[in-house]
């Protein structure tokens, strides 16, 4: 049935593009007729940002190397490196009860069901259906969505469930005595295997202890701009190389290879 749907969805893709056309025309017009001084100013700001980010990135390279060494000492697993695919939001779900986004990337770009989607600030949601050229993303604030998280400060695990309100997530089954405070950062825990570990999800904005109830009422505000982001990053797209790698039997034993892989990890870490 899913295949039928994804096949049929290709037929309505032109419609979805048409709906998005005014927005794209507007942004095209805005950039084409923008004031030169504004552009110069923006350029300066962006250059400054690039400088700041790349200086942070230099330190990242060192930290990743250190992290790898420490993990090696502890015999831990190597952290996985995430690749990104840039997607553009071309449509919203015109329905008050569900929170879906339509992206301009589909199966042909390596998108798959269950893929995690983030924006520049945090986790946005996951892909729930894919057609050849487009994909649909269920936002973390949808009532049908839940994401396993942990409190960044102390590693306390919980599940953040969407409330239907774009500014609100609910943490379920948090014991009254649990160490969760207002302002705590919630990041993906990686449990469940769907979302990669360590992406910021939300910030706790209210912890209510209700006497007589076993669980505290904890709500959090999503960090991602769920209703504003136009460009999103889709994590770990399937590339042709990946698919080939999956089909190859991978020999993981000899030391030089491992060292090579580490080098690769370092390099790609720097690039990102």
């Amino acid at each position, binding site marked *: *049935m899913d295949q*039928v*749907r994804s096949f*049929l*969805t290709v*037929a*309505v893709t032109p*419609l*979805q593009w*048409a*709906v998005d056309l005014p*927005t794209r025309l507007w942004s095209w017009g805005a950039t084409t007729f923008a004031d030169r001084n504004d552009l110069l100013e923006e350029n300066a700001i962006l250059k400054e940002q690039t400088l700041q980010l790349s200086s942070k990135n230099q330190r990242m390279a060192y930290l990743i190397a250190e992290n790898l060494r420490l993990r090696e000492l502890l015999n831990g697993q190597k952290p996985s490196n995430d690749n990104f695919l840039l997607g553009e939001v071309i*449509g*919203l*779900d*015109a*329905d*008050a*009860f*569900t929170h*879906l986004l*339509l992206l301009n990337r589909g199966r042909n770009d390596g998108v798959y069901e269950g893929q995690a989607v983030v924006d520049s600030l945090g986790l946005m949601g996951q892909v729930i*259906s894919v057609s050849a050229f487009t994909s*649909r993303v269920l936002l973390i604030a949808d*009532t*049908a969505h839940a994401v396993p998280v942990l409190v960044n400060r102390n590693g306390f695990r919980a599940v953040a469930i969407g409330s*239907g309100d*774009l500014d609100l997530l609910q943490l379920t089954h948090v014991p009254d005595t649990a160490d969760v405070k207002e302002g705590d950062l919630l990041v993906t825990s990686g449990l469940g295997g769907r979302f990669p570990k360590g992406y910021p999800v939300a910030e706790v904005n209210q912890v209510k202890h209700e006497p007589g109830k076993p669980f505290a009422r904890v709500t959090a505000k999503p960090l991602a701009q769920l*209703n504003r982001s136009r460009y999103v990053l889709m994590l770990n797209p399937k590339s042709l190389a990946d698919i080939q790698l999956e089909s190859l039997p991978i020999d993981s034993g000899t030391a030089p290879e491992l060292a090579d892989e580490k080098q690769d990890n370092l390099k790609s870490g720097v690039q990102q």
Partner: protein
Amino acid sequence: MPSLIISLSFLFALLLSAMPLPDRLLWFQPEWVSMVLIYWCIALPNRVGVFSGFFVGLCVDLLEGALLGQNALISAVLAALSLQLYQRLRNYGAWQQAMMVGVLIGISLMIAQWIQNLTGVAADTIAFMLPALTSTILWPWLFIAMRTIRRRFQIR
């Protein structure tokens, strides 16, 4: 030619229904597709009927990413109801007709809610009926516009 114009009108209605709106206005979004479907069922019951309704509903499903067949069922029911009522609806005055269309769209919204209840996402207010209200208010103008188009292109 006539079927082309009819398809184009449905296409336009689909575009309108997929238009992004601010969250608050979403509650008031008129049911464009249902309205156009009801119009054609009243005006040309020999051309547009349950099957066309089903097909258009399927397009809505694909466009909105809803449960496949949800809107197809609703539109088919809507078309069937309009076909039952078209002789009476033709003789009504503008506002009486609008009220009746409002009731029909209300029924379709109700069915949509039932299906959404079954699949797990339910509204907790009666506000999901607001589109029926806006559709009622817009109906007379839509009716006049569609009639002009129908006469202009002499669709029978």
